[in-house]
């Protein structure tokens, strides 16, 4: 934003912004409580016995009962829930019933791969989808537009694992450009890191690109129809300035919104992509935990992803203010 905004205006905005953030954080508490309760009940009211899973094939009924007792699964539900919430409030996420590892350690080990995948995916997505959407809207009805739209609808139509297999077959097996699987920490060098993350990130990005390119296009079409775009053209500005300075900034809010809600979509993709490319991330951890009825791990992970979802959407809501000075909180 050019020009010196009056300081009182800025101060007022900052105050409202802080108040807003505080309000939003408060408002997310009931959301997380709903999630916590929902997940807890879902897990406990349906069949599944971590003790049987833990003990393996040869356990006798009596041995199972003893293991259940030692895992605390025989406590009444309400007291289990309160214990859990109490632990949460003191920052203790508990230990895995199966491996006995602290849940936070488990999550810590798996965080980096997933985070890397998510960030690289997001970068690829934004770099590709926004220009795609802008051009499609600009050349509305043209061959380019149709091509972009066809690609993005296609992106929605192919299951992630199929995309993954196809990319592996072409780029890793036939062309031998990348390893077929695995993950290397960025700490072990940018080259090894990128060579392993590029294919999964592209795989995951296909859906996301489809989503955001579509939204960008729709938002841009809406905005390109606005009077101020006509004004900008009437001022003799170049199309590039018209599109990116005038139109895109105004289209940013719906696009950002989809970036946020699309996060949930990405999580689904992450689970599958991590399996296909053998990335030891949070997605696999969650699926494995669910299948093993590892209650503390499932609860913590779902709460964590929900929390991240809430935070991302909060950040996005806050970022609206930087995109649009009209928005006050």
């Amino acid at each position, binding site marked *: 934003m050019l020009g010196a905004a009056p300081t009182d205006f800025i101060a007022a905005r900052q105050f409202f912004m802080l108040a807003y953030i505080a309000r939003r954080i408060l408002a997310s508490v009931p959301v997380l409580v709903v999630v916590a309760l929902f997940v807890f009940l879902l897990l406990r009211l349906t*069949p*599944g*016995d971590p003790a*049987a*899973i*833990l*003990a*393996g*094939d*040869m*356990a*006798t*009924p*009596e*041995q*199972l009962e*003893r*293991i259940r*007792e*030692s895992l605390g699964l025989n406590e009444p539900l309400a007291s289990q829930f309160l214990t859990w919430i109490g632990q949460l409030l003191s920052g203790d996420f508990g230990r*895995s019933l*199966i*491996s*006995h*590892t602290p849940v936070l350690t*488990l999550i810590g*080990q*798996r965080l980096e791969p997933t985070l890397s995948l998510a960030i690289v995916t997001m970068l690829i997505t934004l770099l590709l989808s926004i220009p795609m959407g802008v051009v499609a809207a600009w050349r509305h009805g043209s061959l380019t537009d149709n091509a972009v739209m066809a690609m993005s609808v296609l992106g929605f139509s192919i299951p992630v694992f199929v995309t993954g*297999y196809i990319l*592996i077959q072409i780029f*890793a*097996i036939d062309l*031998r*450009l*990348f*390893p*077929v*699987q*695995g*993950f*290397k920490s960025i700490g072990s060098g940018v080259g*090894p890191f990128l*060579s*392993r993350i590029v294919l999964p990130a592209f795989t995951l990005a296909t859906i996301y690109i489809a989503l955001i390119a579509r939204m960008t296009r729709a938002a841009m079409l809406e905005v390109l129809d606005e009077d101020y775009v006509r004004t900008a053209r009437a001022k003799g500005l170049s199309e590039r300035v018209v599109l990116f300075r005038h139109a895109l900034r105004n289209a940013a809010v719906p696009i950002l919104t989809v970036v946020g809600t699309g996060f949930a979509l990405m999580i689904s993709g992450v689970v599958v992509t991590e*399996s*296909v*490319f*053998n990335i*030891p991330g949070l997605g*696999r*951890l969650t*699926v*494995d935990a669910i*299948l*093993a*009825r590892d209650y503390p791990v499932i609860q913590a992970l779902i709460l964590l992803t929900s929390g991240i979802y809430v935070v991302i959407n909060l950040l996005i809501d806050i970022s609206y203010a930087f995109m649009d000075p009209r928005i006050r909180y």
Partner: protein
Amino acid sequence: MSIFSPASAFRPSRLVRSALLASALALGALAAGPAAAQEIRAVMHSGIRVLDPVITTAHITRNHGYMIYDTLLGMDENLKPQPQMASWTVSDDKLTYTFTLRDGLKWTDGKPVTSADCVASLKRWGERDGGAQLLFKYVKGLEPKDDKTFVMTLSQPFSYAIELMAKPSGLPTFIMPERVAKTPSSESITDYTGSGPFKFVESEFEPGVRAVYEKNEDYVPRKEPASWTAGGKVVKVDKVTWVVMPDAQTAVNAINSGEIDYLEQTPTDLLPLLEANPELTVMTLTDLGYQTMGRLNWLYPPFDKVEIRRAAMAALGQEPILAALVGNPDYQSKCGSMYGCNTPYATEAGDELIMKGPQPEVAKKMLDEAGYDGTPVVLMQPTDVGSVAPQPVVAAQLLRQAGFTVDLQPMDWQTLVTRRASQSPVAQGGWNMFFTNWIIPEVWSPINNPMLNGGGKEAAWFGWPDDPELDEMRVKFAAAETEEERKTIAADIQKHAYDVVNYIPVGEYKIPTTVSKKLSGIVKMPVPVFWNVEKSE
């Protein structure tokens, strides 16, 4: 998904974090890299989460046990018990067993291994292992005599005791420090001090993803050559990393491109992708392989009636099930012996019905005679573990052909594991039938074989046959003086088990292991172990 999957998993479904470059150039460069470190990267059938090889019978945890613990006794490739940590003597009255520890045994924390450690470990083992529970009924005393010797006294002869203590699978006699072995057998241990050929690198452990083992420099192997779990466990590499790949396709691609050295379980259907690669050897680690079997629930209709159980056995057949499960004649074989073929007690006693199957017409007639009323058979089908998914699907079709009403219920393996423990009626979360697999050493004698327990609702394995006659025969077997006598009793037991349809073996199969040609000296046995293995560059 199959952390605690049944004996085997066709689709190795665990994660890995190995991975080296794929471009040919980089491959060369990296191939040189690990040379200094001498590391074996192995993709195991499952991710390891539980580090207590006593609380669970999961194979991956047993394999972990062999890495970091030594066993009291070993068993050689001729299936003969051999001294490993200890040698033993038996008194003439067969009631007193004296064990003497060999020299040089040391915990990784530097302390020597004592007889007290062994006694505590054996006691914990006795609480969990099925065969050991039987043995411990007759154990009057188990006490250290001095630092290196301890004595086990029995109330009556149990001649199978040494075989039991030397068995390579199920719960082998892993010896832990006394303080660790004192952990109640219903709780997992948290201290991973061992005295085995490898040391567990706890800091690099990622549950479900990866486990790292370093050579235990202080381990003193026996002098004899390695043979199964007996002989010298000489470690010839610096480091072994176990990883898991959830997707079999990915694992096969990874070993094909040299990103890993060892693929414990290779889906037979994917062998064509590997056999052409000159860098790789496809082998089977043991001739014993796996037994796949179906179990019926004796508590509720329709399988509470022996006639209907027999009809079910007649309806099934080994060939179609093996074809769907394996589909490769090199790796599958029909076998009517409940103890596995190629084992000391292998016998054909009583196996006619299953070996001739499927006989839908015969089964139909038997059903009619038994007065089957159409009660649906709830057959549990795991969807997420390749090695147990196909059997119920084929079985459902065969049973239907014979006139059974079958309700094939798909579920994940862990749900099956939970549900099969339920003794409730079918309508309240119970079941009628399921399938699982065993490695042959787990079933190769009437004592080991978990199914051959007639203890009913309290003591028997899932399905809960109430069969006192069977239990009496097992006691006779354990007490039998000679090998010949045992073989006869074993055959009688099998005949009886087939008569009452204790369970239905539906064939044997082997799972190929794919190994890089850089590895040599792999010990061929039913348990994948990493001593004696060399890695060349």
